[in-house]
């Protein structure tokens, strides 16, 4: 019952007090959704999800591990298309045309590497990551008042140039829960506009609260909802699941490429 009282008092805080810092707001969100200690115990998660649009359903599986390994598997018509997979060394994707694995471009990979360590969420790890947070005031999100918290992360590399990397987090004032994030789009014709993700359908999984619905997109480009069917916490996943299957080269080519490496090694000796 102690915990109930604690939660209730948390809920009442915004009703009676106005002095809030970004840290307080994040701490409340973390507490309401399960507590920092529990979040930090997480070793990984596997989400079974789907997107439904105009009668089409696309199944997905998203894996995130504490050590940084990650994968999104798109299942469609019996095919498994792995996207944004990181095996600890290589970030890779499946090409939709020839279904072969391809390494991500170096800039994407570099930007990905800069996020390593954020798991389970920058809201838990921002201090460790050295991210700066700042309360930017209030904003109405989806019709309700929300706190807007700015988080300055490690810079992004955009077309070879370091650019500021800012994510805005919006927390429902009433419940303290995260309901939206916004981040500047860094390239293409929408560059400078905000990519947004809306969170809802929070539910409990082993003592932690996760959103079971995420709506992603941008105001001018429309939004797509991803509904999560299940979260599996601390899943057992074989290394081979993430492993980059290697370049699709014939043996002769591989041998040719390996030769100089071997020679180099030898010469070092």
């Amino acid at each position: 019952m102690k915990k109930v009282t604690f939660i209730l008092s948390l809920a009442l805080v915004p009703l009676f007090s106005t002095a809030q810092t970004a840290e307080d707001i994040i701490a409340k969100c973390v507490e309401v959704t399960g507590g920092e200690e529990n979040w930090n115990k997480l070793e990984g998660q596997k989400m079974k999800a789907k997107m439904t649009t105009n009668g089409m359903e696309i199944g997905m599986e998203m894996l995130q591990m504490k050590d940084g390994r990650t994968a999104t598997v798109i299942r469609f018509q019996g095919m498994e298309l792995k996207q944004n997979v990181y095996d600890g060394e290589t970030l890779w994707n499946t090409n939709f045309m020839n279904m072969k694995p391809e390494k991500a471009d170096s800039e994407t990979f570099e930007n990905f590497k800069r996020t390593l360590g954020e798991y389970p969420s920058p809201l838990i790890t921002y201090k460790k990551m050295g991210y700066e947070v700042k309360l930017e005031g209030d904003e109405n999100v989806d019709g309700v008042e929300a706190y807007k918290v700015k988080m300055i992360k490690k810079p992004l590399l955009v077309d070879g140039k370091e650019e500021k990397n800012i994510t805005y987090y919006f927390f429902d004032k009433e419940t303290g829960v995260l309901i939206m994030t916004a981040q500047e789009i860094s390239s293409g014709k929408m560059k400078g506009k905000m990519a947004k993700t809306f969170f809802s359908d929070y539910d409990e999984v082993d003592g932690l609260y996760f959103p079971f619905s995420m709506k992603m997109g941008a105001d001018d480009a429309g939004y797509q909802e991803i509904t999560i069917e299940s979260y599996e916490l601390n899943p057992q996943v074989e290394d081979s699941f993430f492993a980059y299957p290697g370049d699709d080269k014939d043996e002769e080519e591989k041998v040719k490429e390996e030769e100089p490496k071997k020679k180099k090694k030898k010469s070092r000796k």
Partner: protein
Amino acid sequence: MKKLELLLLFVLLSLFSFGQDVGLLDGKALFGDMEARHIGPALMSGRVSDIEGHPKDPSVIYIGTAGGGVWKSMDGGLFFNPVFDKHCQSIGCVSVDPNRPDEVIWVGTGEVWTRNSTSVGDGIYKSTDGGQTWKNMGLKKSDRISSIQIHPENSDVVFVGVQGALWGPSEERGVYKTTDGGQTWEKILGVDENTGCSELIMDKNNPNVMYAAFWEHRRTAWSFNSGGEKSALYKTTNGGKTWKKIHSGFPKGKLGRIAIAIAPSNSNILYAVVESEDKKKSGMYRSDDAGKTWNHLNADFNLTVRPFYFSRIVVHPKNPDIVAKAGLFGVLSRDGGKSFRQMGQMHADIHDYWFDVADTNKIFVATDGGLYYSFNLGNTLEMVNNLPISQFYHVSVDHQEPYNVYGGLQDNGSWYGPSSSPGGIEARDWETIGFGDGFRVYPHPKNPKITYSEMQGAEMVWKYDSEARQSKNIRPLRGKDDPKLRFNWNAAITTSVHHPDRVYMGSQFLHISNDMGNTWKKISPDLTTNDPEKLNQENSGGLSKDNSGAENHCTIFTIAESPLDERVIWVGTDDGNVQITKDGGKTWTNVVKNIPDLPKNTWCYHIEASHFDKGTAYAVFDGHTKNDKTTYCYKTTDFGKTWKSIVTADVYGFARSFQEDNVNPNLLFLGTEFGLYISLNGGKKWVKFENNMPAVAIHYLDLQKETGDLVMATHGRGVIILDDISPLRKLTPEVLQSDKLVFLGKKTFVMPEETSFGGTSTPTQFVGDNPPRSAKIVYYLPKRHIFGKMKVKVYDEEGNFMTLLEGGKKKGLNFVYWSFHKMMPKIASGATFARGGFVAPSVPAGMYTVRIEKGKDVFETKIETKYPEKSVFTLEERAKQQEIAGKLYKMVEDFAYLVYRLDTYVSHAKMTANKHPEYKEPIEKMIKELEAFKKEIVKQGDNYVGGGEDKLREKMAEIYGEVTGYLGAPTQNQMDNIALIEKEFEEVKKKLKEIEQGEFKKYLDLLKRLNIPYPKLKTYEEFVDKTK
């Protein structure tokens, strides 16, 4: 945290949230998913008032526009995005902080090119995040800010030139300084209430040196004056502490507007363009001693033309002798201002230039018709095609499907275009139907090929036949004994709902034609004040005569025929009269004196005759040309005998436009200089609508009755549509008080059937959004959905599951779209995409249930889908198509289930072989057989050109897709093909059976012996289930 605890939390929270009435809600909590739709167009674009780039990064360029806010490009000018939508859209200048150019941007509002139709500003704004968010930093009464100069070493020190009010005296004019980044301002130079700072520049090599041009000027609704004794050019050499006139070499006598520029590469070289009493001494001056002395170089047309509109000089960043001057046409000098050549083809009326910081041969040009760029200093130019900053004066709609919108624009003619088009509304969809400045354009109410359009001052009024491609000038001409007819710059025209061939036109008289403009009859006396003091337009302009028709006054500006009685006609005039006839023009009564708290002679901008009662009307007045920015909107219910203001403190900005809903008399729309306001309760409370709706001036509102679309003529952001206002009609106090989800949408939907191959625009062209083609399920949520699952499902009348939809979770109105499809069939697993498998079946016309599961609550509503009345498909054809498509859908899923069984057997067998190597050989034999069988029926290879031959999986999906995707009956050829596929499938089923009874049976026997459970198969029903 346990569920119980969370539940308690919600119970507690609910104690603190109350039922809300509209009085407590802001727009975001009310309008939810309802969003404005921008259709542009951008092909003619609109007036760009200022260009400013990043000092080092050529990819970043900002433009300020006359009425469309601030736009930013981050790719060197290919694409621009708006960054100032929440604020005043009339821009005087944009400045980038040289110390923090990625973060700090300043915007001065209020355009300084002071034409008659220019809007107003409301102060200075600053962004510290590269334009993402903005804060008003004061100078709110400045009206027009001409210049912002930021100290090159200290971002907190900023100097601002305030040109001030155009339409009246103003104490705010002058040069201001802040030393705390805009927290406080000090006026450091002022002349008088009529003379404002039209340009302030700083020597970036020595920020203590600044030059300030002051301009004495004034507009009224009927005149313009540029110039006087007070216009002057000042210089400071001590950071603004003291200023000195620097006129040595300038003409004597009265001066008008002065433009000034420093050569960035040599601070001693200055250029000035001077408007003077002595025409020979007007034009281009140069100083080579930092303003001590001036030499007159040139008085060419483009250097002296309309100084109020074109006073801008820009000097090349590296070569002090290359100078560009704004003008009717763009001109450039390569000899230090001695001579100028005209730039290449682009829109006329040039306001500013920007030299690219990396490639100084690249130049951007701001015109009345958008932004241009050139790679050879203006010899040849191309237009930026994605700036929908067009300035509509008016809009009207027709009754076609999809309906068209019609309107005229500042300096960009008259146009009509569709409200929806395959692939989006593209540049090629728009038709031009008038030259010059365009204003009111009306379609003939019954004959879709006839339109009426006009140019400024009704110099031409066209009846255009778009089929014969013939235009005829039908403007009313002065008759015997008539005085000169006076038409407003934006002359009043309207058509009649009672007689399709009827046209009304307003000069100082009301003219009527019942034969599409062939013959005209006056049906009123002079309805204006006919004040002779306001009729001297030929003397307008001040030092530079300017009699363009823009100041025509004492004219009829708005005409409203009652939709209930053709004899009841309202007329509003630009000099403040409101006249009504109840007998078709035989007698007229001026009822303006009955309007309380309305200053005399306030421009009557719009009258709306009510749809519900012929004695009821609304009148909107715009006082801004008298320097009065109050919002005026009144209602009468007794033919004008008494009036009541329906404006509340919620409304910001003077109003020009108004629309009454034709279904719910309490639903009203008010268009102000700073955006759209909506009242749900007859004007007792107004709520600003901001969902994808910039704070743009709305010059006219129209309602397309069949669709319920509110169509807005914005003066700076093109045509903006608020699709289907019907949910607003249902937002009653009861709904707003509800603590549960309430359905509000339409109940019947016509399913669109047209298909297309999409649009043809190039990547950089603006394409206007289409309205949704789907059923729109609307509900009001009293709270944002955060905890627990929420799903939206559709079922047919028999309770069969159709589809899952994306649920809206917002507090306020939520829109969920259903594209009239059921879920696609399950496709057999394969190595490639089966193309036909991407086609979802359209549902037949009928009743459907929308079911929303929100936590433990379930909400249901029924909707009906209908076929279009005008369709190429008969019911018999549809029935045939539905029957065959249904059969194929089942066949595709049967096949998928067959392959699923195969796959399950194989994976089970592989597992067993691993566990029991002693049986590996026989098991692998079976696996091989199964895999070989799968290869016979499922294509191998990749999704591009590396694929193998199509097999049964692909062939079946293909014919399924073909038949399902077309709503008419399948062809005989397709039917024959289906028969072949069916036969092939039968053989496949037979073969699987053989395997199941042969090798696979042996495998099962083995499993039994080993006591291993059989492969676990989903039932067919489980396999095809899509509800979860």
